[in-house]
């Protein structure tokens, strides 16, 4: 683990508020961007993150050592969101279907405004919105967070071959959407000429 993380985690657990704030500035954004892959409503996600952080602070003296703080927090966020929703199993069932993309639309529109609409990275976000939550989650962990299959398996509590399969099917779905997307753009260019 990064040295700073070890230090932050240690002093945080001793009750140091500055360390806690540093932890927040380091990981709030990655947690938010990750959480958005399965909690589509950013306001609810914000509340979940708020509650998670307060409970971490309250339980700080009882928290264990960790060799990967980010992974630890990711797992804690998953737990926070799916607590009271029976279990993550529910997610697997829900996410096999394609999502209603309307919720993600607003965020995505803002992103397109923020960046050039032609940027490939925006295209990726766009295509991601069309995939199931489960697919988005696994692709985000692999390509954005660059976690290993083993780390993903631990986080999602599934076997390694299951991660590999999930990744593969997610990539195929991604490719399919990417192609449609490009064909559309291509057609539009031709017609506009």
């Amino acid at each position: 683990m990064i040295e700073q993380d070890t230090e932050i985690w240690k002093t945080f657990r001793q009750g140091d508020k500055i360390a806690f704030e540093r932890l927040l500035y380091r990981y709030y954004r990655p947690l938010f961007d990750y959480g958005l892959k399965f909690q589509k409503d950013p306001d609810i996600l914000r509340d979940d993150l708020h509650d998670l952080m307060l409970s971490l602070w309250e339980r700080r003296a009882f928290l264990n050592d960790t060799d990967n703080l980010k992974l630890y927090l990711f797992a804690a966020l998953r737990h926070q969101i799916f607590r009271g929703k029976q279990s993550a199993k529910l997610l697997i069932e829900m996410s096999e279907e394609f999502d209603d993309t309307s919720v993600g639309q607003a965020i995505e529109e803002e992103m397109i405004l923020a960046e050039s609409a032609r940027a490939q990275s925006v295209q990726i976000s766009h295509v991601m919105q069309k995939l199931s939550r489960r697919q988005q989650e696994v692709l985000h962990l692999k390509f954005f967070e660059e976690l290993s299959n083993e780390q993903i398996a631990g986080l999602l509590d599934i076997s390694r071959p299951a991660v590999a399969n999930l990744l593969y099917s997610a990539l195929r779905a991604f490719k399919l959407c990417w192609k449609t997307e490009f064909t559309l753009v291509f057609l539009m260019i031709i017609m506009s000429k």
Partner: protein
Amino acid sequence: MIFEKSHSFFIIFSLEIHYIDIRTKARPLPADLRIWQPMERYKNYRFEDFLNDDEFREWALSRSADTDSKWAEILLRYPDKAEDLERAAVIVREWKKQPSALSDAQMVSDIGRIMRNIEEPEKKHIPRTYTPFVRYAAAVILMLGIGWLAWQQTRPAGSDAPIAYRSGESDIEIVNDRSSDLEKTLPDGSVVTLSPGSRISYAASFTGSDSRNVSLSGEAFFQVVKDSLRPFFVYSGGIATRVLGTSFTVRSGAEDVSVTVRTGKVAVYVLDEKKENIVLTPNQKAVYTSSDKTITRTLVEEPLIVRRQELDSRFHFDEVPAATIFEALEKAYGIPIRFDKTIMQHCLLTLPFREEPFYRKLDILCRTIGATYRVDGNQIVIESNGCE
């Protein structure tokens, strides 16, 4: 368990098929099982196979034009794979550049809320609810103290408007006569938190006009809903403050009004004067003196860090030139710092800055190298005779 079994069976099955090279309908192998297969396997690699290959991703990310790599060899050997390979490499690199869905202002405000709530565990938590479906593109802290009470007593009869904006009888007024803050939602979804003894008013047709206008006396905290077609103005004490984005603070004494920017930008206009507006950036303050209607720009009393990253990574200084530290401070606080680089070139120092206030940091720094500083307008000027 049954699932696991049928799964491993499936893998073996597709492996055999792969060797007789009719993979068309067979489900491909997970990437980690393919490692010991011969080079020819790439002949059938597709877009998603490249993406799913750890080695490939590593190569694409490093991209040191590594022509010895087997991926470069694949390009030569199977030219028809070039398109898929190139596209996959682009995806791998671009993936990391996806913009975050969280704005800086929102992050600062969220973290602030968490920190406030852990600091006062005995008190009831600040309500954590965000009005559903309302997304604040700008979290605006607007504290306007125009010495409301003093003004009440001294104003000439008949002149009841320090405010240029008036809309007649249909104004809606919110007065906080309690001893604690009062939170209200405006018709556009923006939320205003009024300090005790403060009041705001707005037209009944608030959401129906070209701009959203609020008059304020006293102190208030605004969270403004973004609407680029209808700008948000706060009128008070002879000036108007226009929200350009993110957060700022406005505060004033009995004689003057001041506007302070926390993050983002605001524009301040003097009403009934044809002066240009001034745009304020973080940690800047505009002071408006009502007697001579002048606006001056200066720094806030307590500058706050506007770029957190800067502080996290670089505020531990070990035997570095003073210039480096001044530059880091300048970036982190967005405040220009002027100093003579040549005179100070021998000033090396070790400083572990933590969360000290800005001027405390400057104090420590200057004392260590025997320099002094002064505030000149919206910048800091360092005076030093150098270090020998």
